[in-house]
């Protein structure tokens, strides 16, 4: 089990924890995730994307939102407590010099977006970041992202910070590239609630801009054994843990995926057992 080194409340319901995981810190690449479990015997295994890693400190940083029993149990852990952690899992983001990249993050999705923005920048891309949240209190990692991005656009649903808009609006404007000298993006990466990723994919589809999304489905082992994370992509069944977590957003069967995320909804409500599976995801 691994020790929690630091813990911080980032915004209402959103925690950032740093855990001791030297091997994960050394091996992980942008786009990968871990599975954590607050209790070995009765805890649930929940996938969380890695927000940051410090190989010299031997630690990884995770950001999660308390949406159900399991994330609350995780939030109840204090510095020095131990949790179970497995990783890094999934395939790293494919990084190359695409040219112009737009990275869209919604809510807690801004955390996993951060290392991808860093990797895209390091590969020589021009990167625009669109950061969105329901309301100002839920915005995280603005400062870090602002430092990395060539262009930083802030939006909130209620207008309490930045522009009052959904992330899809600035995304559409960038794709239209109507301003003089503006160029169409070569790639879009969108991470956030499924509904946000779905509409980002719909926004870019008419422009033919390749759009990567990172899926956070129900998962148990996370190593290619249980099949719980399966999702239909381009008519084929894919497994998020070994084939993903990133897929072409234009090919994902969003409605199927979102209904699978709601598999245990009634039960959770009945048992006051709201878990990370609730739409929106733990990240």
């Amino acid at each position, binding site marked *: *089990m691994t020790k929690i080194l630091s813990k911080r409340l980032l915004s209402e319901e959103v925690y950032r924890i740093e855990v001791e995981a030297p*091997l*994960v810190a050394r*091996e992980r690449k942008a786009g990968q995730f871990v599975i954590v*479990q*607050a*209790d*070995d*015997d*009765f*805890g*649930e*295994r929940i996938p969380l994307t890695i927000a940051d890693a410090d190989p010299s400190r031997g630690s990884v940083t995770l950001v999660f939102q308390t949406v159900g*029993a*399991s994330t609350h*149990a995780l939030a109840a852990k204090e510095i020095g407590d131990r949790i*179970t*952690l*497995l*990783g*890094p*899992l999934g395939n790293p983001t494919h990084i190359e010099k695409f040219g112009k990249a737009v990275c869209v993050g919604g809510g807690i999705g801004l955390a996993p977006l951060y290392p991808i923005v860093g990797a895209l920048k390091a590969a020589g891309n021009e990167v625009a970041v669109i950061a969105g949240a329901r309301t100002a209190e839920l915005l995280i990692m603005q400062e870090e992202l602002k430092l990395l991005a060539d262009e930083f656009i802030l939006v909130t649903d209620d207008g309490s910070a930045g522009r009052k808009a959904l992330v899809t609006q600035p995304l559409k404007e960038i794709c239209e590239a109507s301003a003089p000298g503006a160029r169409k993006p070569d790639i879009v990466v969108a991470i956030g609630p499924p509904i946000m990723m779905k509409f980002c994919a719909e926004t870019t589809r008419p422009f033919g801009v390749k759009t990567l999304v990172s899926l956070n489905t129900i998962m*148990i*082992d996370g*190593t*290619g*054994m*249980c*099949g*719980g994370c*399966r*999702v*239909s992509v381009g008519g084929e*069944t894919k*497994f998020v843990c*070994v084939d993903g977590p990133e897929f072409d957003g234009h090919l994902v*069967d969003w*409605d*199927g995926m979102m*209904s*699978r995320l*709601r*598999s*245990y909804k*009634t*039960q*959770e409500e009945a*048992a006051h*057992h709201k*878990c990370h599976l609730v739409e929106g995801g733990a990240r």
Partner: protein
Amino acid sequence: MSETTKEGLDSLAQDALKGLAALRAEGREPSPRERLALPVQDMPCQDSGKRAQNMLEVAEGYSEAQARIEAERCLNCKNAPCVAGCPVRVDIPGFILKIREGDYLGAARAIKRTNLLPSVCGRVCPQEVQCQAPCTLGKSLKSVDKAVQIGRLERWVADNERACGACDLPDIGKESGKRIAVVGSGPAGLTVAIDLRREGHEVVVYEAFQKTGGVMVYGIPEFRLPKSLIAMESEVLAEMGVRYELNFLVGRTRKLGALIAEDGFDAVFIGAGAGLPKFMEMPGENLVGVFSANEYLTRANLMKAYDRERAATPIYPSRRVAVLGGGNVAMDSARMALRLGAEEVRVLYRRTQAEMPARAEEVGHAMEEGIIFDFLTSPTRVIGDKDGRAEALEILSYALGESDASGRRSPVAIRGSERVVPFDTIIVAIGNESNPLLARTSPDLKVDKRGHILVDEKQKTSIDRIYAGGDIVLGAATVILAMGEGRRAAAAINELLG
């Protein structure tokens, strides 16, 4: 299948023991004919009505008297065909003789010379197609069901030893200074770990899950193989000096090649187990309520979802369950669904009972518990409601046609037999593909077209010093076959490290 109580069976065995004692008082041993006449000892089981409501072990195990009588049935024949039928070559006549002599701990030692997991094998090995199939007694009585019940005896010996608190640690050779990494703590990995540690090598077992045991903890249900047994067996290895690294996925946490190139291991054994579940590839299979057996059983077993008060992992609320498949995993899934509260559980199998790959004993137990079998049927699609939840299966009837390559008669669909049957839960138990992770992250590791790791006759892979065995090589097989492969790999590694 026996519904007789533990007490009833014990009393019958006591009577038979008295008969033998009388014979011996006259100064003679039973003749082969008299041994043939001794009653085969049935396994006492929890009442089928009760057990379908609990997770406790179904088979309760022999009493001492039953074990004594069953041991007396062995003809101790010279050629001992049973040993050849055992993938790890347990000295079966030897341990049975020890039971007869009343040296029960000696019986345990005799088994453990070749098999350190007898409490597991005694429970889950398909003895009727292995050691018990060629048994001379069974042949004489013209029924494999009447062979010496070797598996039940093995279990009794192991359980008795544990109950006595007398588990001896095997002897460990002088520390060799050689280090071996074992990937996966299932039956193959644990066997390799034991065999290598005995030679004095340092062994580190890497396990991706939070508990050791692999399929024995996530797959095989509590009611067939109590998890406390696996924990104890794993503890024995730890006492021998085997080190476990839990929550460690070789291929991701550390690359396979790095174990040898950077971490100083002299050899690696890969026993990573079965991979991605196979699906039927029919429409609607990704609807809510459709599960792989792997997922369903892992939730229920490893994650303890049956303990609704304490477990955070939810299990789907099922009323009408269809299990697709005819193997042991299908039986486990069906019986688990029943225990988790389903009102009706049906097993849909394309062939007939005679072709089922599941052990007859498991099928019998399932039938006793009220599982319904729909033979010669298979679904064509899953039908969902407006929320994307499964609500029915479209099912087609089949007839048996010509024999296929495996010698089993192929099912042929009967045209026009489609019908729609309501089900809210569908568990797909038709086997596994291989896990692609190691092959993808270690390009030099050669796999066949189905992704199983290719090995030579000594279980060596295409990479020097790296060996593999169990389901990652065989596809979905059995605990004992995995152990047999582990044993062979360990022998080769011991030879390599001299």
